[in-house]
């Protein structure tokens, strides 16, 4: 199976700003690939390199094995769902969706039929005559999706498509997107800075930091075995333990991470970490308890229903040995 998208040491510098700085990447066909990273880490630039709106200043990009350095955006069979949707305000929904076919010269009835099909795919049949201005955020998002899918692209790029939606709608759209990708089998490349979204949707993800890839792998790998402190911290709010603390807990003298949910309150003498409770945060499904273990703040997630020590009281935490993950990426 060829890779859908390959980056070979790709660079994109803007003057002195190294937006993308030596990225190697392989996205396999049919993947739901997420790009995760803080603001300004180069995610959007990577996406624009794939769609052709940016050209690499170094390295090469291949789409389905073919070098695309000379292929302009309109000739790449890659479509994008833009963050702000970028729907054409002067066209109705149907014409927006049919746009990609119109510019190809497909005749009116055919393209309208296809547009209707796409609209029903995103559950918007009957909205064809509305203008984008008359739709809600979630509906616009789905129109943008339908519009990007009408050309049957082999790769669909999505730049934070859910960023502007509210939580409820966002969760619903996450499910829909996931289902859609499943059904169509197209390669999805999905940019987000929301780690929950990346973890729950992707089957493979790259964590970006300052124009470089900090880690690449499945959500489980990235979450449970972060390669660096940055990843541990960014993907879920992990506890990062310095080398001496790691060693005192039985590990090597290296940086390690410990997920809050793998910690529990110690009963009796099995406490591995002790200290006063610094903060309590009720999260519904549980309570986040932060203790101060000799200068290092350690957070633990106590499931709902269990007793929680009051703020200021001394508490002890324990965990199962395998939960302590030593980060290879850090010296």
């Amino acid at each position, binding site marked *: 199976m060829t890779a859908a998208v390959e980056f070979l040491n790709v660079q994109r510098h803007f003057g002195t700003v190294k937006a993308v700085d030596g990225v190697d990447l392989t996205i396999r066909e049919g993947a739901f690939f997420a790009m995760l990273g803080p603001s300004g880490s180069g995610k959007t630039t990577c996406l624009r390199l794939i769609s*052709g*709106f*940016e*050209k690499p200043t170094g390295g090469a990009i291949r789409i389905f094995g073919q070098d695309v350095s000379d292929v302009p*955006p309109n000739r790449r069979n890659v479509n994008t769902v833009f963050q702000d949707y970028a729907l054409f305000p002067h066209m109705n929904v149907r014409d927006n969706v049919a746009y990609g076919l119109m510019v190809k010269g497909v005749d009116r009835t055919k393209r309208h039929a296809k547009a209707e099909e796409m609209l029903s795919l995103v559950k918007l049949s009957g909205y064809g005559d509305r203008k984008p201005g008359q739709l809600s955020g979630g509906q616009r998002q789905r129109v943008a999706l339908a519009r990007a899918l009408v050309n049957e692209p082999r790769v669909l790029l999505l730049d934070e498509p859910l960023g502007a939606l509210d939580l409820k709608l966002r969760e619903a759209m996450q499910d829909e997107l996931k289902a859609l990708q499943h059904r169509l089998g197209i390669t999805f490349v999905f940019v987000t800075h929301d780690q929950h979204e990346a973890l729950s949707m992707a089957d493979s993800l790259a964590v970006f930091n300052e124009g470089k890839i900090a880690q690449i792998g499945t959500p489980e790998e990235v979450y449970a075995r972060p390669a660096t402190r940055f990843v541990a911290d960014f993907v879920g709010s992990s506890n990062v333990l310095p080398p001496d603390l790691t060693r005192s807990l039985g590990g090597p003298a290296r940086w390690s991470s410990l997920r809050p949910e793998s910690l529990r309150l110690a009963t009796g003498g099995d406490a591995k970490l002790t200290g006063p409770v610094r903060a309590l945060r009720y999260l519904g499904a549980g309570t986040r308890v932060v203790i101060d273990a000799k200068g290092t703040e350690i957070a633990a997630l106590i499931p709902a229903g269990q007793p929680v020590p009051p703020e200021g009281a001394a508490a002890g935490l324990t965990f199962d040995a395998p939960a302590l993950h030593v980060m290879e990426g850090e010296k």
Partner: protein
Amino acid sequence: MPSEDRPSLGLRLGALGGLLFLHLPILLIFLYAFTTEERSFQFPPPGLTTKWFAVAWFDRPDIWPPLWLSLKVAAIATAVALVLGTLVSAAMSRASFFGREQISLLILLPIALPGVITGMSLRSAFGMMDIPFSVWTIVLGHATFCIVIVYNNAVARFRRLSGGILEASADLGANAFQTFRHILLPNLGSALLAGGMLAFALSFDEVIVTTFTAGTGLESKTLPIWMLDELIRPRQRPVTNVVAIVVFVATFFPILIAYYLTRGGSETAGSGK
């Protein structure tokens, strides 16, 4: 457009050609301020001289009253337009009310209807009400079409100004006047400046309405009317060119300054969002 997109050759030629088209006649005006002919021009000019600048400065006292009058009329008309234009735009930027559409049409009317009509109707109204021609009748005509210029600039700024900052001001304890003074005016300022400049320019160069609303005496001869008289009655014709280019050069820097002010203004006003 992709960030490396370059304008096509055709576009560049079109844009450049267009700008040249806008400026070639002005170069000609410059050239003929130096011609040696006195009455009517022919091409190419038979000779060049700088004497017309001296003539305009020393020998032509008749230039100054029209120049001052035009400055005065434009200043008053702009001031009136600034006040009235700001008032309507403030009202129009508020929530919708009955008659809003009609008012926007009404504001637009003086610029959308040809100047002859504005001029002629004002003239016949003056005639009916026995209002004698004066500086004020000229101002009246000019202010009428200057309002829309100010209004357009101000209303666009109002639209961009997030309503939030006015509420924020009240929220922090400012009364309506303090909000106007400290928040609204500074944010509207550059838009008003741009609108005012354009209004001033329009008024300063207006002939058509003015011919109807100005009397016939010397005391109501604005600079454009003076030029019209000069042009259909050529004596020392290069002097009109001298006056034209002096005005042109004198406005160069104000326009440039206004550009930078309004540009900066639009950026800061946008950041409130």
